[in-house]
């Protein structure tokens, strides 16, 4: 019997092809919608004034109205776990400030829009915040990938752009920042963040150094620079490179790449990752291939507290390392206070160890801005920019903050943290010899069965 199904027309194929292309573009943009959501630290409705953008950027020191601060965060999309953690950090800071009477008697009001992890949407959001909502000040988004285009909007409108998750060199090299110097990253610059790990390898006797290493990297401005620098330094130390490839930032399947590394069985893996799923995928593939690297460090992912341990399993987390400038056990009074408040409010799995480093980065952004407002006596963005470039040292839950000419935090020190005690304890292990560093777990324990 020969039947011609009416639904197999060329038109339908054309429509299907259009659908594939449309959705491919959609997925490539990592966007799942351009709609924005808004939240505020206070219950009052959004502040809407008729003030011009320039008036908002300049501010009014005598005002007692709430200080409106706008931010775009990745509440959905590929960076949603980081974006959600950042939102908690910003809101925790605002709640703390408002509970103490605000800044110079003015309450803080946050307006947070969702950029769905999309580079186009983040630009639209900051244009909305500045030109439509007329916020007084801005906080940065999550990730270097989004911070660079967002900072250009802020620069065009004369806003200071204080952020906590845009440490890639490409963020500071934008033409707008080269001209206006309005970007200020309160966290650790990423390019050198793996140097404590390199220095540790260099400190080992030649017989104990890893003989070879693999360097898989996500195609991301945050992930690549530190791994590439580490690779060049380790090669100079005689560590042979057995794998060094960049994979797309959003693949759905890492297995082939991970299996190729497992087949080479390098002593060390330095993974240029941006999130937990990437690290989890490599760990799982390695476990399936019965391969345990002696040293396994990832640029990001293991620093995300319970979000990491719940995805990979606590026992498998043991021995995993990550560079950062902060960890929940950091012996800083403000940091301890923030961790206590966070645990009480959000109850992360694993208690204090489960607090995501993103929370501290976001909280630090608020702290730095607060000190700048008080020091300049108001919310004039140009005065804040000048003040922050004034060689001042500020305090944050991540430690001291001191900006160089391009807005990088020159006072931030790079540390390497490691999950130990069967994945129940996240501790500082490098650099060696400083009081806060615990002995490093080398080699990494076997995967749990």
């Amino acid at each position, binding site marked *: 019997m020969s*039947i011609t*199904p009416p639904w197999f027309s060329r038109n*339908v194929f054309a429509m299907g092809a259009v659908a594939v292309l449309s959705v491919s573009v959609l997925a490539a943009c990592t966007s*799942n919608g351009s709609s924005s959501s808004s939240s505020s630290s206070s219950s009052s409705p959004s502040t809407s004034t008729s003030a011009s953008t320039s008036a908002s950027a300049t501010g009014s020191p005598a005002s007692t109205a709430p200080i409106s601060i706008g931010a775009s965060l990745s509440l*959905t999309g590929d960076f949603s776990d980081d974006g959600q953690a950042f939102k908690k950090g910003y809101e925790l800071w605002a709640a703390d400030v408002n509970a103490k009477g605000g800044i110079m008697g003015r309450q803080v009001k946050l307006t947070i829009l969702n950029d769905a992890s999309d580079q186009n949407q983040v630009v639209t959001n900051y244009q909305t915040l500045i030109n439509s909502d007329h916020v007084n000040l801005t906080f940065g988004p999550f990730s270097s990938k989004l911070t660079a285009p967002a900072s250009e909007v802020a620069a065009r409108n004369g806003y200071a752009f204080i952020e906590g998750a845009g440490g890639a060199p490409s963020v500071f090299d934008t033409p707008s920042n080269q001209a206006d110097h309005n970007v200020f990253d309160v966290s650790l610059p990423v390019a050198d963040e793996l140097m404590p790990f390199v220095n540790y390898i260099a400190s080992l006797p030649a017989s104990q150094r890893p003989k070879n290493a693999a360097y898989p990297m996500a195609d991301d401005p945050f992930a690549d620079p530190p791994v590439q620098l580490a690779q060049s330094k380790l090669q100079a130390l005689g560590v042979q490179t057995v794998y060094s490839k960049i994979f*797309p930032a959003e693949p759905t399947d890492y297995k082939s790449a991970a299996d190729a590394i497992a087949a080479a069985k390098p002593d060390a893996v330095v993974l240029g990752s941006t999130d937990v*799923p990437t690290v*989890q995928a490599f760990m799982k593939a390695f476990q399936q*291939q019965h391969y345990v690297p002696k040293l396994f460090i990832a640029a990001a992912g293991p620093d995300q507290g319970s979000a990491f341990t719940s995805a990979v399993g606590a026992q498998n987390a043991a021995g995993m390392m990550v560079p950062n400038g902060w960890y929940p056990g950091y012996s800083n009074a403000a940091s301890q206070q923030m961790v206590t408040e966070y645990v009480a409010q959000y109850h992360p799995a694993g208690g204090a160890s489960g607090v995501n480093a993103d929370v501290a980065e976001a909280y630090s952004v608020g702290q730095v801005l607060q000190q700048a407002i008080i020091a300049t006596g108001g919310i004039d963005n140009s005065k804040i920019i000048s003040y922050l470039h004034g060689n001042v040292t500020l305090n944050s839950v991540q430690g001291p903050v001191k900006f160089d000419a391009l807005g990088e935090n020159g006072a931030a020190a790079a540390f390497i943290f490691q999950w130990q005690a069967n994945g129940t304890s996240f501790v500082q292990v490098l650099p060696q010899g400083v009081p806060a560093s615990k002995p490093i777990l080398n080699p990494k324990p076997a995967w749990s069965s």
Partner: protein
Amino acid sequence: MTQEILQAVVDGILTGGVYALMAVGLTLIFGVLDIINIAQGVLVILGAYLSYSLSTKAHIDLFVGLLITVPAMFVIGVVIHWAFIRRLRGTERTSMTLLVTYAVALIVEGVLYKIYGADPQSLNASYTTNSIKIFGFYVTYIYIYGFILAVAIVGLLYALLYRTRFGRSVRATMQDETAARLVGVDVNRVAALTFGIGVAVTAVGGMVFGATQAAFNPNSGYDLISRLLAIIILGGMGSIAGALVASVFMITLESVVTIWQPTWAVAVFYAALVLVLVIRPEGFLGRKAVRAQ
């Protein structure tokens, strides 16, 4: 290098089975209803989350849990059809379903964010990490089970379509909806049940996806849907066996290219789609092959 390529081919074939599990529901729904279900990727993730809940809260084995998640997803599919799809009529129906199913995807994603949050999760059991050694490398049991499941589900769907009264109604509706109505087929019922079955199958795909791939969160479905659409077009839209063949072909190709240069893998995936469609516009098992079924 030979060993690496061999491993990439085996990885590709077995992972292709996983993708086939996610794609067969999409192609079945298109074949019967002329609907391109953009929500399919998010529904896969919903299936993964249902398995996650049963595994972590009730300690039910992932495969045993399918006895619950498959019927649950069937009901969800029927409800989605009843609430959103059946009302669409007229010449713009197919294009309208793109928008409607995208809206469904956003709704499901929002609900998942509300319930589970943004933290990534994964499905774990002994067979998701235990493996056997073949050709000098390890093959994980979950991939083998997933591939067997894919072949079994394709076989079951064929049996349903070609060995049952319901299947005859489905095929009659596929060929000519008006004629099917005239001979007494309850077309609305067939459409609802078919949409339900198409969504129910994603429960299996979601479970195997969650157990084999990177950790997932509510957003993960968007990375999947473009690939699933490419697979069903390449396989021949509406062809269930075509979905399996195309999945294995595409993922194996991508897997091998990843060995050479990972950044090219995605480009080659879609370039292969374009190339095959230029040579054979109906896809691997489209049109003539489907008619012969």
